[in-house]
């Protein structure tokens, strides 16, 4: 790992700063690289089998990113969106980029944000992802996972919420297991998708695992 992901440092407050974003990215990179095969395999069952590879390429691009993340949280998220824009045009990437850009707009000019604000910000992002991607809740896509995360964040206002989010997303995956995909490439395999996990939701779970991994590795001792 190089520069941007290695030069900024952690924080000791409950508030979220670019250092956290940076740590989260570092964890996401590790998790996405480790689970690329799994995600490809899931996507191969319902879509075109590239989800793991495209996310791995995004991960590698994040890893190779030499520009440090801005201390402006909005700018930092826009920087991540730019890396995706330069790397991948898959559906999942497009959705993520849309969400990041919306959150970026909400956080522009801020150098820190309270944990309690994350949920509402994510809700804004979710609305944009749904609007631009043309998907709705209940269609068994990453959107349903994000909705579950927004809900979980509504409950807790501190960093421990991450574990709740992780559980909530897993529950969403499980809840949708026996329902059909109605959006994305898998919409065309709706029948077949019943009894199978939505690859995008599983990717979200891996991303959240990465965030947990990365945030705690940045300074877990100081937390809570």
């Amino acid at each position, binding site marked *: 790992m190089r520069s941007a992901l290695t030069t900024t440092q952690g924080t000791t407050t409950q508030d979220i700063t670019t250092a956290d974003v940076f740590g989260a990215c570092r964890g996401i990179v590790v998790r996405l690289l480790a689970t690329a095969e799994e995600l490809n395999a899931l996507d191969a069952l319902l879509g*075109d*089998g*590239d989800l793991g590879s*495209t996310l791995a390429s995004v991960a590698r691009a994040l890893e190779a990113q030499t520009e440090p993340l801005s201390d402006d949280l909005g700018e930092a998220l826009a920087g991540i969106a730019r890396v995706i*824009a330069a790397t991948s045009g*898959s559906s999942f990437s497009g959705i993520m*980029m*849309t969400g990041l850009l919306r959150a970026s707009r909400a956080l522009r000019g801020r150098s820190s944000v309270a944990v309690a604000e994350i949920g509402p910000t994510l809700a804004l992002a979710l609305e944009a992802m749904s609007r631009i991607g043309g998907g709705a809740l209940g269609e068994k896509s990453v959107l349903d996972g994000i909705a579950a995360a927004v809900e979980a964040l509504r409950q807790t206002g501190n960093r421990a919420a991450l574990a709740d989010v992780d559980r909530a997303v897993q529950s969403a995956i499980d809840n949708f297991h026996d329902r059909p995909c109605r959006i994305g490439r898998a919409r065309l*395999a709706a029948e077949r998708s019943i009894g199978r996990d939505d690859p995008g939701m599983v990717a979200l779970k891996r991303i959240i695992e990465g965030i947990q991994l990365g945030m705690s590795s940045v300074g877990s001792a100081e937390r809570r």
Partner: protein
Amino acid sequence: MKKVINDPEQYVAEALEGLICAHPGVYAQSGKTGRVIVRRTPKPAGRVGVASGGGFGHMPLFAGYVSEGFLDACAVGDVFAGPSMDSVGEALRAADRGAGVLAVIGNYGGDKMAFAMAADLLEAAAIPVETVIVADDVASAPPPEAGKRRGVAGVVLAFKVAGAAAEAGWPLARVAAAARKAVERCRSIGVAVSSCIIPTRGQPTFELDHETIEMGMGIHGEQGVWRGALPKADALADEMLDRLTADQALPAGTRVAVLCNSLGATPIEELYILFRRVAHRLRGMDVTIQQAHVGHYATSMEMAGASLSILALDDELCGLMEAPSACPFWRAP
């Protein structure tokens, strides 16, 4: 994985490089990451640009159709993964010759999002962009949900129509209208006989045993309408044609362009055996084959199988389909 390749990660870059080495007078590479293919010699200023973009592994689709009479620029993604938004933006900009740009793309979520976002940026820079989405695969959704259908080999026919209209000097709205008409009058269906292998995955995307095929499968291995024993070629052709004509009637007297396309490994002999039946059937319906294209147009790497596309022509489409082109992958029939 029995692929004649080097590093799977370099699959796209090396194939594109080979394409340009082989046809240096036709293609040139562009874009920050090299993932934009443009014409070696741009079309005259003042004409509408035609751009596209899509995942890789469908050669000659998409980038192979950058040529006089076809596209001006094309953004290239990874295998079965759409181009990055940046590449799409670069392709749209490269295609602009001062009269606006028509984007002709397949109906895939990632591609649509990337083109929508990139087009917004271009329009902010006062370059008008119109987008035509090709959704020709009748197997992928019933008629009431035709908007959900995948774009497959019909994309090539839409390129041809849009490219010829742009070359003729028509304004953007008219070029877009011609392309849209082509899309409305075009239907396709594919049948998969064996799987392809995404280089970075190294194993087949799906499994079909030694006598099973999948009717209606998409060009990335997306689910089709049935799996079952391989029927005789004539029965296969009949079913494919029946599905196309059930979706778009072809009254006696209609003129059509037919594209009988290999998904990759299916040899030319088998395509002609399939096409023969289609030609007989169309003749029986008093439908005139104005143009036939039989060969490799929109593939899925080494997937075995074929697709059949039919474009119902009117005078305008007929003229555009017959206009000359310099594309190495388009043969005057």
